[in-house]
C-alpha cells in the first residue's frame, strides 16, 4: 500500500504507454498520401520531443534554484534532467530520421526545424563538456547553471522563433506547435495522442528521478572513499 501511495504515477505511466503502443499501432488512422501508416510515428516522435522540452525546462528550474540558494542537490538534479533530456532528444532525432526516410525520401533534409533540433542537442552536449572540464564542485555548479540558463533562453529563441520566420519548412507546424493546433490531428487520433503525451511526460520524469538517485548514490560513495 505504501508503495502504491507514492508510486501510483509510475503504474499510470506504464499503463498509458502500453495503451499507446497497442492503440498507436492498431487503431484506425486517416489514409493520407505519402504519409500513410507512418503517421502512427506521431505518438512517439512528437512525444519524445515534448518530453525532452519538459525535462529541460525542469533542468532550467533546478539550475535557477541552485544559483539562488547554492544547494548541491539542486545542481545534481539539473544535471540528471539534462541527461534524461539528451536521451529523449537523441531518440526524437532517430525516430524523426526514420520518419523522414519514408516520407521525404532521405534520413536528413536541410530544414530550419531539423537544424534547430541539432543545435539544441549540441548545446546540451556542450553543457556536459563544460561540466567535465571543471573540478571544483561549487564552481562547476555555478558555471554550468549560468550556461544552462543562457543556453535555454538562446536555444529556445532558436527553436521557437527562427523557424517561424523561415520562408519555408518541410516539417509540419510552421506556427510552432506541431500536432496541437486545431485541424492538425484527426479526431480519432486524439484519443491516443493526448494519453501518449501524458505517458511520455511521466516516463521523462521517472527516468530523471532514477538518474538523479543513481548520481546521488555515486556522489555519496565517492565522498565515503575520499573521507572514510
Amino acid at each position: 500500500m505504501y508503495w502504491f501511495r507514492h508510486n501510483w504515477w509510475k503504474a499510470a505511466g506504464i499503463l498509458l504507454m502500453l495503451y499507446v503502443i497497442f492503440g498507436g499501432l492498431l487503431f484506425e488512422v486517416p489514409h493520407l498520401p505519402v504519409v500513410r501508416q507512418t503517421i502512427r510515428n506521431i505518438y512517439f516522435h512528437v512525444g519524445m520531443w515534448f518530453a525532452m522540452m519538459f525535462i529541460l525546462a525542469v533542468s532550467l528550474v533546478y539550475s535557477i534554484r541552485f544559483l539562488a540558494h547554492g544547494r548541491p542537490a539542486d545542481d545534481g538534479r539539473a544535471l540528471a534532467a539534462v541527461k534524461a533530456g539528451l536521451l529523449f532528444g537523441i531518440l526524437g532525432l532517430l525516430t524523426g530520421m526514420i520518419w523522414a526516410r519514408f516520407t521525404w525520401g532521405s534520413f536528413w533534409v536541410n530544414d530550419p526545424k531539423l537544424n534547430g533540433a541539432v543545435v539544441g542537442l549540441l548545446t546540451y552536449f556542450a553543457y556536459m563538456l563544460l561540466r567535465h572540464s571543471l573540478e571544483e564542485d561549487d564552481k562547476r555548479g555555478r558555471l554550468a547553471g549560468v550556461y544552462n540558463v543562457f543556453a535555454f533562453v538562446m536555444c529556445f529563441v532558436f527553436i521557437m522563433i527562427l523557424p517561424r520566420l523561415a520562408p519555408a519548412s518541410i516539417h509540419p507546424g510552421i506556427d510552432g506547435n506541431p500536432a496541437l493546433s486545431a485541424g492538425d490531428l484527426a479526431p480519432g487520433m486524439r484519443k491516443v495522442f493526448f494519453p501518449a503525451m501524458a505517458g511520455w511526460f511521466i516516463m521523462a520524469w521517472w527516468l530523471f528521478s532514477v538518474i538523479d538517485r543513481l548520481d546521488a548514490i555515486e556522489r555519496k560513495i565517492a565522498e565515503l572513499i575520499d573521507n572514510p
Partner: protein
Amino acid sequence: MWFSETLVMLRKEFVLEWRQKFAISGILLYLVSTVFVSYLAFEGVIPANTWNALFWLIMLFAAVNAILKSFIQEHEARQLYYYTLSGARGVINAKIIYNALLMAALGLAGFWVFAGFMGNPVGSSGLFLVNLLLGMLGFSSVLTLISAIASRARNNFTLMAVLGFPLVLPLLLLLIRNSSAALSGAGMAASVPDLLILVLLIFIALSLSNLLFPYIWKE
C-alpha cells in the same frame, strides 16, 4: 552606480590595450592572414553567396579569438583586485562595450581587407554596414559571457568554441540573411523586421549577461 563603474572599467580596458598593442595587432594579423589564405584557396572571384558565407565565417572565428582573450589575459589575483574596485555589472558591461568596439573596428577592417582581395559585391552599403555593426555588437554580447565561463575551465579555446557556436548560431543566421539581402541590393526597408529581431536578440543576450555574470564572478 554601476554606470560610473562601467566607465572606469572601460577606461582600464583601453589603457590595458594601449600598453600591450600586440594583442590587437595579433588579431588583425589573424584576420588578414585568414582572408589571404581564403583568397589563395578560392583562386580569385567567387559567387556572391559564397562571398557572404565566407565573410561571416571569418568574422565569427575572429570574434571568438578576440573575445576569448578578454578574460584569459588577466590573472586571477588581478580579477580579485577589480572585485574591490567595482561590482560585477561594471566589469561585464565594460567588457561587452569594449569587445563591441574592438569587434566593430575589426569588422570594418575585415570588410575592407576582404573586399580588397575577394571583390566587393555589396549592392546596398547602408544595410550592409548597419548589419555588420549590429552583428559585432551581437557577437560581443553573446560571447563575452561565454568567455567568462570558458576562462574558468581547462581547454579554454575548445570550450569557448563548443559553448559559443550553438548560442551564436541564431544571430549568425540572421546576419547572413540580412547581409545577403544587402548583397543583392535590396534597400534597408525590406530588412527592417529582421534587423529588429537582431536588436531583440542582442537585448536578450545583454540582459542575461547582466543577470548571470554576478554568479560567475563571485569566487
